[in-house]
């Protein structure tokens, strides 16, 4: 099944709280090994198998509005 969408994380806005990681139902977000400008390990989107369902849970839980969610048009949405 193709991905229904993807997310972008503004790494410099991210404070590495991990809420998006813990609430992603597909487990597609992880902590980056790099540091951001604030000194946090920011969240990092990792979806090699294109399993993102664009549910937006990560966006909903992000306290810093660091996540933008994109949906692909024409892919069935049934979240």
């Amino acid at each position: 099944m193709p991905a229904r969408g993807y997310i972008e994380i503004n790494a410099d806005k991210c404070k590495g709280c991990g809420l998006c990681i813990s609430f992603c139902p597909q487990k597609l977000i992880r902590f980056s090994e790099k540091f951001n400008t604030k000194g946090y390990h920011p969240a990092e989107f990792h979806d090699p198998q294109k399993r993102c369902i664009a549910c937006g849970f990560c966006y909903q839980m992000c306290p810093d509005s660091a996540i933008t969610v994109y949906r692909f048009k024409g892919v069935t949405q049934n979240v």
Partner: protein
Amino acid sequence: MIKEMFLKKPKSLSEKEFTYCPGCHHGIVHRLIAEVIDELNIREKTIVVAPVGCSVFAYEFFYLDGTVAPHGRAPAVATGMKRALPDRIVFTYQGDGDLAAIGTAEIIHAANRGENITTIFINNAIYGMTGGQMAPTSLIGMKTTTTPYGRDPKKDGYPIHVCETLQNMKGVAYLERLTVSSPQEVIKAKKSIRKAFEAQINQIGFSLIEVLSTCPTNWGMTPVEAIKWLKENMVKEFPLGVFVDKTKGVN
């Protein structure tokens, strides 16, 4: 494949980065308020009144006209604004120390007058900005920097219940306690915040949303642990639900 932006930072949030600690729920609630203001198309007539506490900068975080009130006085400041400009939308954003300790008189009287304003009340059971002291809403037995042996009701009194206190006031139009501790709860919370603002738009009276929130830093937990603690402890002391809803039947 054509992509479309599905969810992104709302316009009613400014470009300023939040000064909150990692995982703090203030940021989630800020975004929900901004989304509601965007969706109701009221950004250009809305004024925010920030409190004193962690969210003292809230007036900078919203892309709205705004001010910061003296500690606890936001409902009085908002009252003055609303009386001077009745067709504008005015909301206060207050924490538990601000609203339920030093500002108790102001919130009770604004509610009782049915002041046509909206209050977003963040209850995380602790003073954040000043470094984790006991709040009026701290739980029994909760250790804080001023209750190092745990909150003792004999000495420190009991957690104050704001919604239960305000629910019998005739001026209240909408009153709900909720959390933003899961994506489902966040989506639900947004609908409630929207209702609160609609109560003001429709001039039904005073509206308040109490958000049980985490303070991972001062609770000494990770953001994920803090959510678990909130669900297991705070929700027990402060039951969730709609306490007053006079919006039914009003469009």
